């Protein structure tokens, strides 16, 4: 990358930064066995669950696995727009118990 590019703010990430980022991603997969596809699946499931209660900005969702000492954690950053304007689900109706002869 030339001096002029840097001066004009057309800076591309260096190959060193790219290498570091790629390594961190691939090692997350190596260490946890959580593949990018599994992460995507978890993201979809989270969206589905949360969408029952709140409206979500789907473009701003970030889900990652971070590294701690001896453990990993899944970190989800999910922007919420507002609560859903629907009445909360009714409590399940009690049904009369039918006794069976097995008892």
């Amino acid at each position, binding site marked *: 990358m030339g001096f002029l590019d840097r001066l004009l703010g057309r800076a591309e990430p260096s190959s060193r930064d790219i290498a570091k980022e790629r*390594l961190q991603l691939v090692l997350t997969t190596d260490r946890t066995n959580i593949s990018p596809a599994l992460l995507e699946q978890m993201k979809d499931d989270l969206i589905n669950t949360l969408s029952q209660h709140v409206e979500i900005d789907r473009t701003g969702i970030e889900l990652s696995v971070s590294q701690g000492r001896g453990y990993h954690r899944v970190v989800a950053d999910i922007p919420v727009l507002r609560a859903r304007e629907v009445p909360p689900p009714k409590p399940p109706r009690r049904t009369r118990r039918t006794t069976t002869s097995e008892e």
Partner: protein
Amino acid sequence: MGARVITVTSGKGGVGKTTTTANLGVALAANEQRVACIDADIGLRNLDVVMGLENRIVYDIVDVVEGRARLRQALIRDKRLPELCLLPAAQTRDKSAISPSEMVQLVNDMRNDFDFILIDSPAGIEQGFKNAVAPADEVIIVTTPEVSAVRDADRIIGLVEAEEKGPARLIINRLRPAMVQRGDMLSREDVLDILAIDLIGIVPDDEAIIVSTNRGTPAAMHNHSPAGTAYRQIARRILGEDVPLLTPEPQTGLMARFSRWLRGE
């Protein structure tokens, strides 16, 4: 208990395990330590040529384990450094010729005669690696600042911990300070961020390593190359000396060369 047994390993091939073993062996022996280097890379032996002892092999490690030779018949004493010995690998056998428990037994038989036993591990994570790590008291992992080598080092760190041989210590080999500076190579900090492991040395990329391997005289033996100096410093750290671990800097400009000359490097 006798000797400290240190296994040098990496996962990925070609990052400098054998060069590291040879140079640390030389540097420790130069510090009046009795050192045995064991080549655990059965079938692909190379520690003998890197140390310049290939013409003196009569018996090898498999001969000893299988009882065809006694240990002292197989050990080759380096005439340049009388405290330094090599136990060569067999070239015509494979990794399954020795088991981890045989390796432990062999090394235990050697412990009383040496201060250090350095084991040069083969690449990979299969039986050769397991043989090399089984007798270890300590493990040194060699990596280069490249994506593939660092990834494999991470895997090896996990395996070493699983074998309860950790915590391993790291050597970053073949660092090119000028490339790091212009953003084209992982830095010391990058590698340590990713691997979260103790660093015991940085060896700069150095043509002197190829020249010394050509000659069969490890760089730590007498020349003042940057890599040879780095290996001698690592040996002093292994011996418990507090040697500052500086990151190599690019030596390009006239002033840099002058200051290098002043420091006698």
